[in-house]
């Protein structure tokens, strides 16, 4: 039904898309569960004061939120530039 070249090129684009998705998902899991494991196993490390009023724990908590933003930005930027144009070129 669909020619073999088209299917092969789509498979390449799909593989790249899932590679990016999985790397970013693993990064997110590592960041968040890293934070949770520090809370569970190294509470005294997180209690360490960086400035008066700023503990490492609060800073890392805020950074987990910022990191979530950065990772979604990385994905959207990759998808908008690479993935979309690769899909557009499939039919050529």
């Amino acid at each position, binding site marked *: *039904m*669909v*020619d*073999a*070249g*088209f*299917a092969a*090129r*789509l498979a390449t*684009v*799909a593989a790249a*898309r*899932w590679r*990016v*998705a*999985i790397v*970013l*998902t693993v990064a*997110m*899991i590592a*960041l*968040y*569960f890293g*934070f*949770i*494991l520090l*809370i*569970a*196993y190294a*509470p*005294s490390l*997180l*209690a360490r*004061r960086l*400035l*008066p*009023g*700023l*503990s490492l*724990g*609060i800073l890392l*908590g*805020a950074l*987990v*939120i*910022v990191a*979530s*933003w950065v*990772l*979604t*930005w990385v*994905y*959207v930027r990759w*998808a*908008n530039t690479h993935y*979309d144009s690769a*899909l557009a070129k*499939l*039919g*050529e």
Partner: protein
Amino acid sequence: MSSLLATLQATSRIGEPNAVAMGFFFLFIATTLGITFWAARRTRTTEHFYAAGRTISPGQNGVALAGDYMSAASFLGIAGLVSTTGFDGLIYSTGWLVGWPVVLFLIAEPLRNLGRYTFADVVAVRLQQTPVRIAAAVGTLATVSLYLIAQMVGAGGLIRLMFGMSYETAIVIVGLAMIAYVLFGGMLATTWVQIVKAVLLLGGAALLTILVLARFGWSPVALFSAAAEKYGEGVLAPGRLVSNPLDAISLGLALMFGTAGLPHILMRFYTVPDAKAARTSVFYATGLIGAFYLMTFVLGFGAMVLVGPEAIRGVEPGGNMAAPLLAEFLGGTPLLGFIAAVAFATILAVVAGLTLSGAAALSHDLWVSVVRREKADAKEQLRVARVATVGLGILGVVLGITFKGQNVAFMVGLAFAIAASANFPALVLSIFWRRYTTAGAVTSMVLGTASTLLLIYFSPTLQIDVLKHAEAWFPLRNPALVTMPLSFLSGILVSLLWPRPTESAGFDSVSRRMHLGQEVQPSASSLQPSAEA
């Protein structure tokens, strides 16, 4: 401290009928009913009713997703938790956000390209319709009803506390308003209710954040420092909330992967024109929700320093009144009234989204696909969707009144655990795994739902907190650490033991549609000669 508490209770106008709160509240109801009236004239088909005719822009959907997700539990609950426990409350602030990148990376675009109205559309796409849709509807309805009970009971209690209305009156008002939005205005009205609510909630939180920071030289660190000075350095460090590491990991799993399995969130991706719009909308939603949870850092510590944990617990032992009390401290009765109305709007919008997604499971998955086998005409489909809406709305009111005074806080965690253990594994495996079969999908969804309900029953959450027994047979407060792997493994095992080559053969066309969308016909692209060939 007790004399301060007495003065605060004497001076707080929480629980008294408040003209400003009433005014804002009726303004919200009038505006949203106006929107519903406008939307009703544009809601003529199921495509409109469930998916707003796929005309919502990425920006609008991003705000609406944030509106659907940020419940009163996250606004009042987290602010309360931070104000009474400090750092421990912030664990929740981060946990509620981290599922969103996962939704973006794995779910949003394939869902938009493969389905029409529900997540069952995606799981069933190359499998047998009837068993898959029944199992998916069970997972959806379990998630939706538990979430609905938690929201309804929370609503009744909050409104009684803030407006001085009776619990039952509050529940009936919430029920009537949500039925009106969904019944007449469908997804279009529900989307705009979410947008209005999200703007109000983010605006209210931002206003409080600015007023708090203005008192601390615009420095959050100065605020945290004041909290540590007043209540000890311990408030900035992990405390007793996370005493069991496995508990923390299990809850983390439920929050992270449950977000990607919530039916009312997944449904929103069908309202935008294409997969790229779905992608962009999650990006906006993550930004808004993240900003909101960052503000809870300031709101929570602000309430701790300016109002004080004892005074907050004195008004309501769970700490849920921290944000309203902070508002009253900063801006008097008018600001209290505004924040109370925002909290009410928040609950209303969330229950409307839940009702719509439950109605879609009942009518689209169960009635149209299973009972009528796709033979129902457009008119009947819309009628059944509306009947299901009214039915679910009434059920929500009845459940809300039934569970009056019960400790239902665990139900939100339970809803996330079912979403993570039934809906998410089935969705991911059907998107990624060629050899997934009907029997595998049904096993992962049914076993995921059943094991979550069973283990919650034997957990300390229910046995100790609710039933007041001395101990619990199952050690974890949230079962996701066991039930999510169980759902994945059982689905994989059953698919491998009883392979279905015909179902696997369908994966190629599904994969094509997943990336290219339904609009692109494979036959059309094959007509164009390949550049390589």
